[in-house]
């Protein structure tokens, strides 16, 4: 059964159909005017610009750091410089990118409720799920544009150091987006239930950290298997459910593997489309929960 689930080609086709249906539905139902308005609003936020500037500083700062190492004696091989730039930049993109995703996802809906703009919009012939979809898509455009911008700067930093088109970087940035998509969708769900941006922001950070630590649950399950205690067994059962339900953001660590492995030793690229599907399905779950909460909200 498990093998059937893991590698059945028909299941792969079914997943493909589901993802295409989701994308088609998003394209069809999204009120693009709301999405574009959200995007424009997002660009004006000082916090986001601050994060973006910080990330740019870190990306170019990485070049100075490695340059200093080289100047101290010239013994560090060029490969180490490039590796350090890659590690620093991908970490900067991950940290600042996820902060941007969390802050923007946490603030778009609560801000509009606070400013009462939501009442004006919902008085128009726009359904709540469409309004929310527009907001969500707008957030994703902001996240994607920021990521793209950071990715371009990263590429330039790499290209200056080693004039080869950094093709691997595209895969890494592409995967990073789907990691952010999951965090952003669940933060959005919390934000839909909230009237202020503070709680969803904290929740978003919590989601990101928890998502990276999901694998710890596996050791809880393993220890409970060895234990005789009923409490341990129950805890183990709960951990098993959470382990298999919560998204595991460590899966996206593939991006660093792609970037840092040697030319003859790269991970199997079949993981990339599977991770894309993984991101989209959890984002769908996040959006449905967001809508479920938002439609019950008294406005």
């Amino acid at each position, binding site marked *: 059964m498990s093998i059937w689930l893991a590698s059945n080609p028909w299941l792969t086709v079914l997943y493909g159909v589901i993802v295409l249906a989701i994308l088609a539905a998003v394209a069809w139902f999204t009120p693009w005017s709301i999405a574009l308005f959200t995007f424009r609003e997002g660009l004006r936020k000082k916090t986001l610009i601050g994060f973006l500037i910080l990330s740019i500083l870190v990306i170019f700062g990485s070049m100075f750091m490695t340059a200093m190492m080289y100047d101290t004696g010239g013994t560090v091989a060029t490969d180490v410089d490039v590796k350090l730039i890659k590690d620093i930049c991908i970490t900067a993109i991950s940290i600042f990118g996820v902060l941007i995703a969390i802050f923007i996802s946490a603030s778009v809906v609560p801000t509009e409720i606070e400013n009462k703009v939501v009442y004006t919009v919902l008085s128009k012939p726009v359904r709540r799920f469409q309004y929310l979809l527009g907001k969500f898509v707008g957030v994703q455009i902001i996240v994607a544009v920021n990521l793209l911008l950071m990715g371009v700067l990263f590429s330039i930093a790499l290209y200056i150091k080693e004039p080869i088109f950094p093709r691997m970087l595209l895969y890494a940035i592409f995967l990073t987006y789907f990691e952010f998509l999951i965090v952003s969708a669940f933060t959005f769900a919390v934000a839909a239930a909230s009237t202020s941006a503070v709680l969803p922001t904290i929740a978003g950070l919590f989601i990101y950290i928890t998502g990276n630590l999901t694998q710890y649950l596996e050791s809880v399950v393993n220890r409970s298997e060895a234990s005789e205690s009923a409490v341990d067994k129950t805890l183990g059962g709960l951990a098993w459910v959470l382990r298999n*339900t919560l*998204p595991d953001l*460590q899966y996206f660590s593939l991006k660093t593997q792609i970037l840092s*492995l*040697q030319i003859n030793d790269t991970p199997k690229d079949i993981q990339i489309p599977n991770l894309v599907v993984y991101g989209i399905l959890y984002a769908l779950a996040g959006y*449905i929960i967001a809508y479920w909460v938002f439609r019950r909200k008294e406005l």
Partner: protein
Amino acid sequence: MKRFPNLVLAVLAVIALALGALQGYRVRNLREADAFYRWLVTASTQLRVFGTITPELEGEEAEKFMDRDLFDRVVAKADQALPDTPVLDGDVDDATGAPYPKLVRYTRTLSTGSLTEEGESGTAAVAANPEQVKKDAEVWRFARSASLAPERADFVRFRRDKRLATAGTQIGVADIYKNQEAPVSIGQMFLGFRKLAAGLVWIQVDEAFHKGEMQRMVPLMRTTVLLDPNFVDAYLIGAWHLAYNLTAQMSDTPGYLKEYVPELGAWVGNKERAYYAAANFLKDGIRNNPRDYRLYFDLGYAVYAEKLNDHMNAVTYLTEATKQRHESWVRRMLYHSLQATGQFEEARAGWEDYLRANPGHAVAQRMIPTNTALTKERDAEALGAQARRLLTQAGQARADGQEAQAAELERQAQELTKQRDALQAEARAIYTDLNANTAGGDEFAQARLWRMQALELHEQGRTLEALALLRQARMEVARFFQEASDLIIQMCIEADLPLNLSERKRILEIERMKEAWTAKPVEVAGRRFDFDAAQDAWRQADYADQETIALTPAAKDLAALRKDRPVIDQFIGLGDNVVFELDGQWYEFHRRSLLGNT
């Protein structure tokens, strides 16, 4: 939807989460298959390179690890599942003479066809071979197949329980074969940023190096690779620090003060300890990154060949480097090491192959005749030795009054001497041509010519002229210095001529070393070895003139024996001449003159 909106949304949310969870299961399965596939490659490589897929462990430790058991199960299934593949040169296990299992043959030369970036490492590596890419895809398909599901499940379980000694790339458990308590969750400790943490620790290594704080570097280097086992440059530069920079300020330990370490199979002083630490660091790197030729190359060339002058091991690792995607100079260094071990025919064949791939390559054009001449020189020396033995026997026969037999022996000796002279003339002609046709002269060829001339002069009783020639030659050709110095000492002793101060010092050091050896037998693998100063040989204590099989570094038999019974390295590491017994058979090992270590 309109009647039960909450229920419908709840169901939809659950369905989406369930689909996500199922996809998560599929991704996890893929990741495990990827780790399993890498483990297969790692285990196959280790079997081929180190002769074992697990470190040498004993007792409970050995029973704990399941690598071999699991690997054998996979190998049995691979024989049926993988397509047939021809047995090529190098696909034969030297130890048993049998071809490697199909899985090991398949993983021998793999190239990842996907997600590759040429020149990523700063230099243009040899492009992926389509045939190798196809094989890689087949091994990957096999590793994911339903038929291997039980082995994959066991792999995941063993890995979780830390019962796999073979830590491969991306398995995520670094160094477990040494440190059983290594944290499995080190990756999560840094929320996925451990590679950055490794980079930052590496900066500390660099700082420590520039401050001259060598003692801080080793733990920091180990921390770096624990955080990021795929940081190949850390292994390469770390080993370089250990083998070159750390030892730069150290003085050589005199031979009589060196200690024999059976685990290393060598007499070690301070410098040698650092060299072997570098070798072990690189071997760790190979366990974690079995496909990176640079690790094999640095281990073979930078440490074994250049620092330890151990060309037998250099050949082993450089050969493995050439099986991965590699730079063209890797093969050149392999052929130099083959030459240094006395495998001139193999070196020549390699250079010919290299010249076919790189027409007009100047070094290859020189090395082909060089190895041909070395072959002739070696054969000439063997004939000369044989002729001398016959003459000695003739002398004895004459003394016994067997005139006819003495005459016959002398005739045979003359015949051999003629053949020797012919071979020497051919070798000399080759060296002369080489020297004349190379712009600025060929140093190596010139050194060989001088050596031959000096030996001839010495044989004719013109030792003083021979010594003058060698003394001049060793100054003109730096790499001939050691060989010429040894010849000078040998000739002076034979002709009863006085030695200069440095030569006497060298003799004195050798004598002190021999005295120290004679006074103190060595225990190796539960056997006692005694040193016989007169014969300059280490002998196993219970040797009593039994019949022996002779081994040299160039012998194929030795390569096979070493792989099958790694303990041999501990025996032959004792000295230039060692007599030992293995499985009821006695062997005598002779580390011959290496005829030109380049």
